[in-house]
């Protein structure tokens, strides 16, 4: 176990290094300048600005200086949000995105697991078919279609919920729901399939044979094993939540990390883009490691190396 964790962590460092370097270098090599997007500015002022943001000299030397600061945990100053450090912006935006994504994943679990279990118990009956059709529909409606439609309906037409913004509880409902739907659908399908597998295992037959009530067999024995695949699903799912929240944050005007990221890429802000990519990748690598460790601790059948 310790060697697994160590090996993964050692592998993570070159991965993060490559990803951050790629982002920074592409941003600087690509035509376009973080300071002159809208109008041309005099070359003297541009030179002064570049110097101020430590983006003067050759791209290689800029990159080396950036990486030098990065090693010490300094993500430099954002060129787009002038006078704010990337560390500062991330510290403010990250909790917003984590809250949004976390609530969405929680909601997805709360919808997905019961729906999947309900369908599995009624395998091949009408209720099962209907539940799985609903899940397939949930997977097929992209969040960028669902979200604006719901905004039109509940925000503009019915005035039940605010159209956008972040801060009050009623502003959280729509974005969390829209972000959660595709994951709830995937979780429902996964739970159903896995529960059907488990219900065919010997220990379930034993539990039934010794006269346990069906509810107890289902909830105390079967479901506990059947949700194991969800743990390994959570790694990739979190990647999906991260990318999904780019759209949701843009659409609902939520001051999360995703909105900052999109703006920074479109405005050629190398510091902000590289910083966000670093945080996203590190977070994902870490969560994948956690889910792998958890699954090998919980499931005796799985042995990771």
């Amino acid at each position: 176990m310790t060697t697994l964790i160590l090996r993964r962590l050692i592998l993570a460092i070159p991965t993060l290094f490559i990803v951050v370097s790629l982002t920074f270098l592409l941003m600087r090599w690509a035509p376009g300048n973080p300071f002159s997007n809208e109008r041309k500015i005099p070359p003297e002022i541009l030179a002064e600005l570049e110097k101020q943001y430590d983006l003067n000299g050759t791209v290689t030397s800029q990159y080396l200086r950036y990486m030098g600061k990065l090693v010490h945990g300094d993500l430099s100053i954002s060129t787009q949000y002038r006078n704010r450090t990337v560390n500062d912006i991330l510290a403010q935006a990250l909790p917003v995105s984590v809250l949004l994504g976390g609530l969405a994943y929680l909601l997805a679990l709360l919808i997905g697991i019961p729906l999947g279990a309900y369908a599995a118990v009624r395998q091949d009956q009408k209720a099962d078919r209907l539940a799985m059709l609903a899940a397939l529909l949930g997977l097929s409606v992209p969040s960028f279609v669902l979200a604006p439609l719901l905004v039109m309906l509940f925000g503009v037409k019915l005035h039940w919920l605010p159209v956008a913004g972040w801060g009050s509880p009623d502003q959280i409902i729509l974005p969390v729901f829209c972000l959660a739907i595709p994951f709830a659908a995937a979780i429902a399908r996964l739970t159903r399939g896995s529960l059907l597998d488990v219900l065919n295992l010997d220990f379930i037959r034993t539990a039934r044979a010794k006269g346990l009530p069906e509810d107890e067999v289902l909830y105390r024995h079967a479901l506990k094993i059947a949700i194991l695949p969800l743990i390994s699903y959570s790694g990739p799912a979190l990647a999906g939540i991260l990318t999904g929240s780019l759209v949701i944050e843009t659409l609902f005007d939520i001051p999360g990390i995703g909105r900052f990221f999109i703006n920074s890429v479109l405005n050629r802000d190398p510091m902000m883009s590289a910083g966000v990519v670093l945080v996203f990748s590190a977070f994902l690598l870490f969560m994948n490691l956690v889910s792998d460790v958890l699954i090998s601790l919980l499931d005796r059948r799985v042995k990771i190396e």
Partner: protein
Amino acid sequence: MKTFHLVLRALRQSRWLAFCACFVVFVVLLAIFGPHLTRYNYAAISDTSLQPPSFAHWFGTDLNGRDLLTRTLYGARMSLLVAALGTFVSLTVGVSYGMISGYAGGRVDSLMMRLVEILYSLPSLILVIILVATLEKPVTTVLQHLWLGSIPPRLVLLVVFIGLTEWLTMARIIRGQTLVLKEQAFIQASAALGQSHARLLFRHLLPNLSGIILVYLTLTIPAIMIDEAFLSFLGLGVQPPQASWGTLIADGAAAINPIQLYWWLLLFPGGMMTVTLLALNFLGDGLRDTLDPRGKK
């Protein structure tokens, strides 16, 4: 062809599956011929802007007075084109990677799978955003040098990079199947007869993988369509006046305002896309139940 017969049997057995297959064919035909069948041009601006659906404009008109039906059909063409080409990229990479990894086995296999594992844990679409946003000018230059200046550079970027994000699952599944197949007698016999690796891979392994390839082909197409629309929604798709379902949906979402509802801008392209994705996913699921040797769920 065994695969072909299995597909036909599956379609005969399930009315819904057959219906979805027909619907997908219908959407493809609409995408190819539709834009020429309407009375309007997809890029023609008129002064009748933001008209609700009527007999003259079945889907209404957009902000610039363009006919939304024509634009939705044209968008279908763009979305399906990106999906088809992107799936081709992802399929080629995924199948060859998986086959080589499984066939080679040993150290090569574990190294190749280690790489897949690393790529899995990267936020691939976020990296695609950076690549598409920064590489537009270089790709334009390259295309012009190749006398291909008329191809939109964004199209090339989308096809290549989205295709390169969706091959991992395919590679894993093909590798697993290859591992199983290469132990079987007919492969061993061909190897004993002294056939070359290339012949074994292409003549003997590939045909036996065709069923599973077809299943994941059907499931990769909707995944790539969603990715394309996602990037288009964020402003990284094809450039106006061209349109894909993603850019049309983005236009519809941008037109949301507290005073007047332009629901048709969102509902028609979004609805078309959702229904098409649903049909493709349903088809993919159905084919997986028949063709995936790893058993039915």
